[in-house]
């Protein structure tokens, strides 16, 4: 059966809809903006392929991209572990404290990221509230991977928690209630019913959080300039080697990120496609 909300792009023009056409033209400004930015950097880089290949095979660049992606994955793993239960509690309870918790989680959204970086630094520096005791057991955050992960985690958690909370809220409480009357404990109902029905939101939250984490710069350099994540490396090369060197790394980062996102989207295209219909 055809879905009127999902008719093909061209079929709209066979039956002109002035509002849709006007909106398409207005909206295309943003698409053109993004396309031009991509096209410019692509053409610039393709003009000197030898240089691009040299940068792409530079071990410092490869290590930096791997470090950035790896730290992003660690952030997603932490969010899956800690953010998922928090999102469920926020979705299923209506306590007055919820608004306060939601506001706390959202803080990084409304702060300049340098401020977020300072907050993370103060907390995790070697004399910090958490940094000091953790240093005693051998975990150091300043200029170290844990610092990068914490800074990335701080700025990306609202993207994960909010998306997953919305997913949990979309699962009708009645379905969970029925699972419980049929003998499932609350945890089993969560695992067997709520998680599968929110799978797409969990994936979207993870992708958004990962994307936000790997794109972070300001918050990360406050606590860990070294080891250099890609953003730091691009900035470093820009200030020391100039635009050509930094834009080559930027282009590689665009290709790597775009490939990862594309693979995830294709691989999970049908995941949890019943979400909208529950």
């Amino acid at each position: 059966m055809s879905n009127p909300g999902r008719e093909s792009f061209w079929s709209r023009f066979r039956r002109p809809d002035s509002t849709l056409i006007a909106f398409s033209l207005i909206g295309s400004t943003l698409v053109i903006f993004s396309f031009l930015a991509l096209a410019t950097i692509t053409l610039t880089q393709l003009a000197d392929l030898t240089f691009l290949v040299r940068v792409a095979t530079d071990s410092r660049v490869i290590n930096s991209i791997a470090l950035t992606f790896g730290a992003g994955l660690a952030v997603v793993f932490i969010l899956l572990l800690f953010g998922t239960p928090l999102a469920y509690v926020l979705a299923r309870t209506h306590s007055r404290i919820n608004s306060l918790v939601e506001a706390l989680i959202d803080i990084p959204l409304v702060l300049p990221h340098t401020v977020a970086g300072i907050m993370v630094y103060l907390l995790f520096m070697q004399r910090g509230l958490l940094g000091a005791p953790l240093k005693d057991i051998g975990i150091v955050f300043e200029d170290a991977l844990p610092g990068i992960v914490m800074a990335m985690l701080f700025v990306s958690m609202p993207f994960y928690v909010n998306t997953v909370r919305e997913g949990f809220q979309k699962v009708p409480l009645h379905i969970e209630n029925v699972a419980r009357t049929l003998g499932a404990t609350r945890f089993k109902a969560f695992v067997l019913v709520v998680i599968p029905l929110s799978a797409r939101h969990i994936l979207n939250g993870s992708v958004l959080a990962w994307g936000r984490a790997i794109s972070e710069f300001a918050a990360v350099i406050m606590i860990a300039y070294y080891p250099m994540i890609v953003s730091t490396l691009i900035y470093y090369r820009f200030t020391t080697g100039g635009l050509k060197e930094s834009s080559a790394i930027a282009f590689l980062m665009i290709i790597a990120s775009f490939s990862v996102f594309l693979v995830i989207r294709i691989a999970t295209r049908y995941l949890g496609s019943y979400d909208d219909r529950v």
Partner: protein
Amino acid sequence: MMIEFDRVGLALGEFSLKDISFTVRGGEYFFIIGPSGAGKTIILEAIAGLHVPDTGRILLSGKDVSTIPPEQRGVGLVYQDYSLFPHMTVEKNIAFGLRMHHLPSSEIQRRVEELLSRFGIFHLRSRETLNLSGGEMQRVALARALAIDPQILLLDEPLSALDPGMKEYFIQVLKEIHRDNGLTIIQVSHNRHEILSLGTRMALIMDGRLEQEGSVRQVYASPATREVAEFIGYENVIDGVVVSSGDGECLIDASGLKLRASCTVPAGQGVTFCIGADEVVLHSPQASLSGKDNTVQGMVNAITQSGYLTRVVIDAGATLSAVIVREMADEMALRVGSPVLLTIRKNAIRMIGK
């Protein structure tokens, strides 16, 4: 299994159940009725263990179950929206409860197949539930609830989303389930036909309070309050004064409408009574009606059509509503303003709160 609500109070946001007490005896088919937002679903969910009372107790077979979680109560629950698991096939939906109770897979298979056959949905066993019709979803929801062999089945307006033919079919199905499984069934409903076809006893809830509890016959014969009478479908709820009384009969005057009714209220006292619209019988003004209980002259105020039925509003001192079949209304050539004779049986006049 007997269910007792003992002064149960339960607050959920702005809404609260207030000091509710009623008893559902084992094997009864009990109806909970009331307007939207009255708290009917919350009562069902409290029986299922999904809400814990703030005050009072809920007893199942005499045992306080306030601390027993839903998964240990053995209570089947079917919501109006069926709440099937959309990520599971029909078969897996029905097997869910059995898997939660750790039954051997051969036993799960046997019981699921038995239920699939019983509800005539064997051919749907591998289908996704989102593609089923309303009637098919209802069968899956009932089969899933019955799979765990519950002693109590809670039904939250289960027939309201079905077409009339399917509704009639499911009334028969529910009758069979009640008879064959020996279950205690509590059903929330707005539908008079369902209550009269299935119910043994009923309770009426309004704004979180219990307004009346009793056998279906008793509640319909003597509604406790004007609100109850109006809610259960009495179109004529009228205030009057007893003019004379004696021998179990009284004469009531309601704004000039004089009616004889079976009652023991002393003369001079105010009463509220109700009459079903189908109990107000219309006749042409020329009809000879000697010997009828209450024969009253009136004038047609309004006529509205509703399917095969015609609703006629008559000014007979007090305003009365009557329902007749459309054909009869056509035969009588009823028009607004035309005079009409009407009769009302003495026993059709039911005193409220007496």
